[in-house]
């Protein structure tokens, strides 16, 4: 296992296969919680934590888990880490747990996490799987924070993560705060990424 392979598996999640855009996985949390940059960041960090832990543990146990019940085992492992996150946010980051609400338990069924377990962790070593999880998680965090920042800045006229209480517009484009606005913002970002990164063909 070379260092370049490690870097490659880590970095692919940051741009080439960045989750909600390129893989188009995990859209439910990506659209639902990103009304502010702060919520996007919180959701991203929670998902990253679960992804790194579950990828590592699933990879470690990949020889022990029988093929027939592997999905059940993955779900138990993922659900355990998610409940950990839920308990920790409720005890130490109460405001965040309030604003993310239902979406923390829903990380269990976030397709990215089960997807990485199935597509990567069950075939690769612990270190590689963790690198993959960290890369994918950071990509997801980056995308959610970016999407949240755009929707918050143009939709509500604030950017609480950086500027605190400061209000930039009196009459923001409130459409972006609603669910249809989330789809439009995601579509525009996806289009922009394709424009910059060239066509999707390989």
């Amino acid at each position, binding site marked *: 296992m070379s260092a370049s392979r490690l870097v490659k598996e880590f970095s692919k999640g940051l741009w080439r296969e960045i989750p909600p855009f390129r893989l188009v996985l995990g859209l439910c949390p990506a659209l639902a919680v990103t009304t502010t940059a702060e919520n996007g960041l919180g959701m991203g960090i929670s998902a990253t934590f679960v992804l790194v832990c579950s990828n590592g543990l699933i990879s470690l146990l990949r020889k022990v888990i*029988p093929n027939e019940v592997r999905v059940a085992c993955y779900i138990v492992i993922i659900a355990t880490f998610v409940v*950990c996150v839920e308990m920790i946010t409720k005890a130490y980051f109460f405001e965040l747990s309030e604003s993310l609400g239902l979406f923390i338990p829903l990380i269990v069924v976030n397709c990215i996490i089960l997807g990485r377990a199935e597509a990567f962790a069950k075939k690769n070593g612990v270190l590689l799987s963790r690198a993959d999880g960290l890369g994918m998680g950071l990509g997801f965090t980056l995308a959610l924070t970016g999407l949240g920042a755009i929707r918050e800045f143009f939709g509500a006229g604030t950017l609480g993560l950086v500027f605190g209480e400061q209000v930039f517009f009196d009459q923001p484009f409130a459409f972006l705060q609603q669910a249809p606005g989330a789809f439009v913002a995601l579509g525009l970002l996806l289009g922009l990424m394709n424009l910059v990164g060239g066509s999707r063909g390989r």
Partner: protein
Amino acid sequence: MKKTLHMFVALAGIALASGLALGGLHQVTAQRAADNILRFKKVPAVVSIYQGRGQALAADQLAAFEDQVLQGRRQVDLGEESPLSLFLIEAAGSSPVVVFEAFGQGFGGDLGVMVGFDLASEKLAGIGITTMSETPGLGTRVRETRFTKQFVGLGQDAAFQVKKDGGVIDGVTGATVSSRAVAQAVDRARKLFQAHRQAIVAAINSGQEKASP
């Protein structure tokens, strides 16, 4: 056979390890989480009842008042699983109000409601929603003042049910289960208050004596 056993052992082992880990973490975080719910959910619900009674509260007084509510709470043991926490609201020019929490069965589990009773008239002084896991945008609308203010001023013998069930409460459109849960919680609180009126009043009075030596 061997394969079946392997499947069973692997899944059971993972589930067991998961249970132990979560149990341990729960021990560590439960107290802090309960404190957070008390501070950020229960106390604001009590304060909202106070404000619903027409008492103005400036923004800079809010934190101090919340502290006062938090420090002024009393415990009373009514033979239930855990002792009941009582909150007291006192304002110049109106009779004291005792507030405690009751639960109803909502769409996504227990729905907590702070229910306040005017100690002089025994009428409902107001309610405030604490914890719930209802559907965002639908069930969560029972939190709105438009719904909760209907309970203010109802007497002990009022029918605490939604109109669909023959009661006096207008349910929130599209959230019948959640509206029922709130009515159920208020009804339970009323029954508790009627059954243990003496003990509740005694607990409040004893606390006051202790507070002023």
